[in-house]
């Protein structure tokens, strides 16, 4: 099994390489570069040209690409042209915010989805089941960003004022509060974006669980257990529920990829200082060293998520083995 995981991991390398080339070519072709709009227009052209030369902007794209990848391989991710800092420092400030938002959102996703999915499956065909399905359809009809707007309208200070808007932690609490208060405040700031993110991802899990539970309820081994006189509570808890959760467990890798991908965009609506806002900012300021690294990071994360799903599937379901 370790061999197969290693092999899958090695397949990632050419894939990531291809993506990095495409992203780099895109970046090189964007109109303007790190210096446009940043400089005093009175500077003589020769000086600007000299600065371009010094920054390596005049080299052909493949030369720059080789420099970039070569740097990354030895841990040098380049310097941000907009922040005048190493790229890793710029991203490092933001990565915790996106990471914590994603984890919180995943937690909420499973907290909502598992009970609803199980209940809908257990009581399939009843009014409760129909209500849960209707909820899922309404959530499905809300694109994440539209849902974000609705959330802001309803619960931010604009509406009911239950949750703050913008930022990842309040400055006052950060400077005076105890660690626990800071944690609570961070949670408070993350709740709205996290819910907006998780409602969409709950749908897949709810439908998956519901279908599984219904499927298992009609399966032969459950009929056998029933005819042997096993109490229905035991049948449900031990035989139906456990088996129904298998696909949900293996879905977590995909859910991680999906949640972090979505986090990037929900951040922009909530002006939340994470990787997403950093990416937009980098594109607008032509700060390609940062933008490229962010794209590569998310491509890698997606690939890892898919791989994780496959690995979990082989662990929890003995019938499946990675080829």
């Amino acid at each position, binding site marked *: 099994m370790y061999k197969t995981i290693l092999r899958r991991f090695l397949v990632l390398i050419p*894939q*990531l390489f*291809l*993506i990095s080339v*495409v*992203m780099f070519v*895109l*970046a090189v*072709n*964007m*109109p303007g570069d790190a210096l446009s709009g940043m400089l005093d227009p009175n500077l003589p052209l020769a000086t600007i040209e000299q600065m371009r030369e010094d920054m390596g902007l005049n080299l052909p794209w493949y030369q720059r690409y080789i420099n970039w990848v070569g740097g990354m391989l030895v841990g040098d991710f380049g310097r941000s042209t907009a922040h005048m800092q190493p790229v890793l420092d710029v991203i490092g400030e933001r990565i915790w915010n996106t990471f914590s938002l994603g984890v919180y959102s995943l937690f909420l996703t499973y907290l909502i989805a598992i009970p609803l999915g199980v209940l809908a499956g257990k009581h399939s065909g009843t009014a409760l089941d129909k209500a849960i399905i*209707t909820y899922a*359809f*309404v959530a*499905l*009809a*809300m*694109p*994440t*960003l*539209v849902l974000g*707007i*609705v959330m*802001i*309208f309803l619960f931010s200070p*604009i509406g009911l004022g239950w949750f703050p*808007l913008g930022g990842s932690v309040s400055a006052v609490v950060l400077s005076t509060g105890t660690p626990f208060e800071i944690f609570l405040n961070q949670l408070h700031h993350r709740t709205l974006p996290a819910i907006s993110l998780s409602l969409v991802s709950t749908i897949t899990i709810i439908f998956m669980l519901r279908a599984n539970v219904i499927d298992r309820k009609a399966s032969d081994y459950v009929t056998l257990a029933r005819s042997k006189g096993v109490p229905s509570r035991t049948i449900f808890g031990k035989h139906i529920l456990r088996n129904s959760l298998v696909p949900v467990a293996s879905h977590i890798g995909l859910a991680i990829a999906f949640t972090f*991908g979505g986090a*990037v*965009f929900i951040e*922009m*609506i909530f002006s939340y200082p994470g990787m997403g806002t950093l*990416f*937009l900012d980098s*594109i*607008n300021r032509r700060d390609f060293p940062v*933008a490229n690294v*962010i*794209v590569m990071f*998310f*491509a890698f994360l*997606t*690939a890892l998520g*898919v791989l994780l799903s496959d690995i979990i599937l082989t662990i929890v379901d003995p019938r499946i083995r990675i080829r």
Partner: protein
Amino acid sequence: MEQNTISLENKGLEMALSTKPPSLFVLFWRELKHDAFAFISLFVLIFVIVAVYAGAFFLTSTRDVMSNNLINQNQSPQDSGSLLGTDSNGRYVAPLLFVAARNSLNISFAVTGISFIIGLVVGVTSGFYGGKIDNTIMRIVDTWTMIPALMFIIAMISIADQRTVGLFILFLTMFTWMARTRLVRAAALQNCNMDYINASKTLGTRNSVIIFREMLPNLVDIVVANFVLSLAASIGMETGLSLLGFGLGMEVPSLGTMLQAALQPVNLQFRWWTWAPALILVVIIMLCINFVGNALQRVADPKQRYQ
């Protein structure tokens, strides 16, 4: 006695062969009669689509709808005397909504249509021929799926000299065809393993005949159901990207560009008419599409459809 059963079986077979299977439309209608949500959704959806296209067609001219009027900025429905007031450019929201919804629908029809054409061609090739061709194609699809799509679209839109509708459709299609290909390929592969295709191959039927006359008709149900569901996804993508300012240019209004108004807290708090109509329309369209698409999906699966 034995002869009797055989003749009965033959009779049953004859009857089964002589009655045509009900068409997709009949099955869909049967399903609708037992699903109130889907039934209502279908009519709301048809109404909205007809109203949007007719409304946008009969509006005197797009130029009038789009022309800015700085005196009339941000007037509420009461002040301006029109149904939905004016937006921050002084444009009347109500007529703008028709043009915007038409553009959004056009884009999502185009994106879904093109990506399904690609998906059908590539997916059927991959599923039918299998082996090395299948492996290569699926590797490419896998790699392509790893690309963070929305980030790439944002980067590409920043490059574009001019933000035209065609370019936007192209960018969206570039990242939606993989899912369609996967779907079609899985269905094609499943069909290829069935006896009727194997029998046909043994008889020496030409591949083109097998694909077009025997396999494709069996894929229609799945494709139609997923086409409808993908429409909603395309509308979602268009809205999201335009909302962030990486969709269409200012000269092409869409539901997403209208939602941009909601990004300003002032509008969100005091001027509901600038953003709420577009938001409600997006949700209604997507909700109806999802209900109808789900009913279609049940029709496509004989195990789930209403008997």
